[in-house]
């Protein structure tokens, strides 16, 4: 049973993980995007639909990322272009995404796809206990694990990463270096939208193989919270996402066992556990909010 839960942790946590990595890039550049939820849903539906039409889950995953990116483009234009309030705009886009996907998704509710399926890695997956947990997943999950060190390298070891982080700290320094902070921020928001869409697509075409209205059920919001609690560090956001996944898996297992616990409490449980765990590991003194983001969180309109 423990092996089941841990396997489920990775399987169910991957979508949140992808979205949180994307949101991390965006927040490092100084833009908080609550529309991540909407981008995930757009990715889930877009990815599912393209997989239905083409039968190719890779095209589906790409389309999912694209749909997420399109929705985040709205956020980028309103916030970075017109200086709209980030939190209000993000919330509006989240609900816009829920409505939009519910409307266009009606026809896909009963569709069937093959999608991505677990691909055991030869030899490694034969290791007892650990093999099944770590090395028997869908291709998107493997990709997402590789993505975390890649994003860390990008943010902390390249000049592009320095530009992104400077956009989230002191945009006048970017100006002084002849760079355009708005462009960098907009690109970071779009990258975040793409990864959120990819995460949504993982949910629909690799994890559940189906489309259900509002199927992300707050995972995008959890991803945003994870980034903040993870002190804007990719590896900590990854851990948080898997913790959330583990709680999801635990909830499913408990339901299957038929224990007499209210299903409503079980639904609540993953969110509660994630928050509690992150609050415990979070150390305010060590975390440093990017300055530009801090202004947004303190009530400045941002932009």
């Amino acid at each position, binding site marked *: 049973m423990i092996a089941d839960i841990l396997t489920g942790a990775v399987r169910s946590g991957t979508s949140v993980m992808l979205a949180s990595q994307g949101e991390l890039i965006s927040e490092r550049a100084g833009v908080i995007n609550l529309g991540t939820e909407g981008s995930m849903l757009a990715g889930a539906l877009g990815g599912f639909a393209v997989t239905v039409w083409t039968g190719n889950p890779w095209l589906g995953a790409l389309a999912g990322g694209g749909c997420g990116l399109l929705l985040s483009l709205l956020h980028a234009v309103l916030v970075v272009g017109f200086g709209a309030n980030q939190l209000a705009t993000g919330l509006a886009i989240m609900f816009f995404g829920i409505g939009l996907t519910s409307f266009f998704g009606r026809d896909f509710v009963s569709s069937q796809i093959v999608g991505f399926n677990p691909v055991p890695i030869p030899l490694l997956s034969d290791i007892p206990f650990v093999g099944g947990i770590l090395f028997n997943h869908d291709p998107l999950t493997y990709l997402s694990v590789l993505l975390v060190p890649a994003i860390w390298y990008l943010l902390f070891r390249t*000049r592009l990463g320095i530009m992104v*982080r400077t956009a989230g700290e002191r945009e006048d320094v970017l100006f002084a270096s002849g760079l355009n902070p708005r462009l960098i921020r907009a690109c970071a928001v779009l990258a975040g939208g793409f990864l959120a869409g990819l995460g949504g697509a993982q949910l629909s075409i690799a994890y559940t193989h189906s489309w259900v209205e509002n199927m992300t059920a707050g995972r995008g919001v959890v991803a945003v919270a994870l980034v903040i609690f993870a002190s804007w560090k990719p590896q900590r956001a990854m851990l948080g996402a898997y913790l959330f996944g583990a709680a999801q898996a635990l909830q499913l297992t408990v339901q299957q066992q038929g224990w007499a616990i209210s299903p409503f409490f079980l639904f609540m449980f993953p969110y509660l556990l994630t928050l509690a765990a992150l609050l415990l590991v979070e150390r305010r003194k060590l975390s440093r909010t990017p300055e530009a983001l801090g202004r947004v969180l303190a009530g400045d309109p941002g932009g």
Partner: protein
Amino acid sequence: MERENLLTEPLLSVRGLTKRFGSLTANRSIDLDVRKGSIHAILGENGAGKSTLMKMLYGVYKPDEGSVEIDGRPAELHPPAKARAQGVGMVFQDFRVVPALTVLDNIALAVEKGWGLRRRQLRRRIVDVSAKYGLAVDPDASVWELDLGQRQRLEIVKVLLMPGTRIIIFDEPTSVLVPQEVGAFLDMLRRLREDGYGILLITHKINEVLAVADEATVLRSGEIVFRAGQGEELAGERLIAAMMGDKTLKAVSRTAGGPDEAPAAMAVRGASIRGDHGELALEAFDLDLPAGRITGVAGISGSGQRELAEALFGLRPLASGTLEIGGKPMKPGVRSFIEAGVTLVSEDPVKESVVPGFTILEHMALDGYPLYPKGLGVDWSRLRAELTASPEAAALSVAAPDRRAETLSGGNIQRMVLARALIRRPGILIVSYPSRGLDIGTAYTVQRQLLEAAAQGAAVLLLSEDLDELFKLSDRLVVLAGKRLLGPYRPEEIDQAGIGRLMLKGESA
């Protein structure tokens, strides 16, 4: 120091540079040469037009008239990217750095091109330049950990690593340094000169000009009033005279204090103060503020000055210890301190003491004058009359009562806040950096007002980063270093170098 071939061809040469802002002419037909391997100092009081000139040379402003030549060829410096491409670098007073990033990241952002980063190669270049010019700075330290001197060295390394830098403009570089660092800084300037850099040094410190400059140009009211170096001897008195113009300066100095055992208006015993993040800022110190005396506080910035000032004004509770005013222990809370006659001039009045949309008169009513009721409201005309007649406001030439704070310059706000504090005739006056951002003439006025307040019996605590000012005004000096409060010392018995050593190393020095 004699140096030969002063008449090398100029790297940068400007003729007839003029810049107007509306009806104000900030710079009027400025001619200036910066030569290879030479240091050219620009002197002037605040508002003389130094920073406008620098901003034109660095391409921030586009000149309205005049021509610029680099290597004898006509050149365009606006915008800054063009100036930089032609080899003009600038070390700003307010550093253009990101505190959250490391030194190496900051340099990579400014110096490198493209998206990738060859860290090892860049690190080696940083270490090489640091070693060559004695600019010790750790590439892997985060900038927020650095003190101002280290941040300045980072800025200089950055400018030196920019491709093609040949002309370096320093904007008031020594204002952020402690006395011990100034010597090393001037040595570094000499080394840069030997390596053929053309250096433009903006400053108001005559001693530094005399120590390193090959040429000096004095600006007053936007015009060049004096040049020295090309044939003309660099002489301190002549430079000062040129800077001040026909304003005569009465040098300020305190008359030696009376008996040392003046009664303590405020007495602090065994006090500790915490900083913003709960860490101890100052540990277990005693401090007396005798009535009628000025107690000066020296220390490298960020050694607990702000915490001390706020604690003595009741803004920040003591973590431990006692604080008595007039022999009575104080209740916590600003209100009881104000009622006991304590007044604070904060270190950043623009941020902390000003409501942008309020007029000067309204600020005076907020905190300063007693209010006279008129019907249900305030007798504004009486207040206005008092403000207009106030000798303090006149001495500090506070702007008109109806000017709104957001239209005032930093120096104007500083004067208003100081006048307001003095008008209250406080029993205990805590002043942070009173002459910061003021020109010499106004700074002298402020200093005279502080001496006057002390002569009338106020206990003054003067926090300053200017050791000259501290030595000139203080009857007693204390030093903040390493979370301790050292002293008091008598200014007659210790010199500036001694205080500087204490600032750097504490009492072990």
